[in-house]
C-alpha cells in the first residue's frame, strides 16, 4: 500500500498535519502521531478507526508499525511541547 492522496485527505480532515522531519502525521488536539509507515501499511478503514478512538489519557499516542523506544518517545514529546 501507499500513502495515497485519499489517506492524506482523511488525516488532514481529522486535523492531522504532516511533520516532514519526523515523516509522521501529528494531531496536537487529539495528541496522536501516525508514522508514514503505519499510514502506508494500513487501510483507509484502519485510519478512520484510529481517528475515532478517544484519547482522554492526556498522553500522546503513537501509531507506529514498531513501537518507538522510550528515549525516542520522550524526545518526540519534548519537541511537540
Amino acid at each position, binding site marked *: 500500500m501507499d*500513502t495515497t492522496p485519499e489517506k492524506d485527505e482523511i488525516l488532514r480532515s481529522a486535523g492531522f498535519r*504532516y511533520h*516532514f*522531519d519526523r*515523516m*509522521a502525521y501529528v494531531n496536537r488536539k487529539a495528541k496522536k502521531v501516525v*508514522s*508514514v509507515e503505519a499510514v502506508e501499511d494500513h487501510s483507509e478503514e484502519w485510519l478512520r478507526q484510529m481517528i475515532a478512538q478517544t484519547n482522554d489519557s492526556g498522553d500522546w499516542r503513537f501509531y507506529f508499525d514498531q513501537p518507538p523506544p*522510550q*528515549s525516542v518517545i520522550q524526545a518526540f514529546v519534548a519537541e511537540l511541547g
Partner: protein
Amino acid sequence: MTEPRTVRDRLRSEYFDLVPSMQRTLVALEADVRHLLLPVMIALDRYEQVRIVSRLKDCESAVDALRRRQEARDFASEEAETYSLSTLHDLVGIRVLVFPASRIAQVNQALEPLLADWSSDPVPGFESNDPPIALKYFGRSASAGTALIAEVQIVSSLIGSFWDVEHAAVYKTTPNLQGVMASPRMKSRYREVLSALREFENEFERLIQETSEIDAPSNPAT
C-alpha cells in the same frame, strides 16, 4: 565532566573509519563501469551521450539517511550499538546518465558482467505497466575487495540531472528536508515533474528518429 557520546557522534566516527573503504570502492567501481561501457560510448551517435558520475555520500547526509530509516526518525540511545552506516546501500554511488533513454537497455546489458550478482532495486514507474524510472542495483564490488555495499544507477540524462539539481538546490545543506518528499502532496508534484521530463525525452527522441528516417537513403517511402 564530558558529555556522553551521542548516537550521531558514534556514527560520525564510524563514517571516518569507513572513508578509506569508500574511496577504494569508488575508484574500483568507477573503473569497472567505465571499462564495461567503453564499447557503448565509442559507438554512440553524435547527439547521444552516456555520462558516468560517481560520488561518496557525505557524513551528515549518511547519518541523516540512517535516521530517516528509523520509523520515528530518531536514534534510540538504548539501541546505540545497533546502528551502523555500513547498512546503507549508497555510501558509494555511481550514476550512469543516458541520452536518449532508449540506450538504457544497452547500457544495462553492458554492465551485466558487473551487476549479475547484485540485487536489483529499480525505481518503479508511475503505473504498474510503466517502465521503471531508473534501474538501480546494489552489491559489493569484487574489484575493490571491500565489504561495503555500493549502488549503481542507470537513468535517463534529464531525470538524473533533475535529481542532481533537486539535491543541490534543496537537500544539500539541509538533508532532513528529504522527509518532505514522503508527503503524498509532494509525491504527486514529483510525479508530474518526472512525467513531463519523460515526455520531453520521448518527443525529442521521436523527432530525431523521424529525421533519421528521412535521411536514410534506403527508405523508399520518403
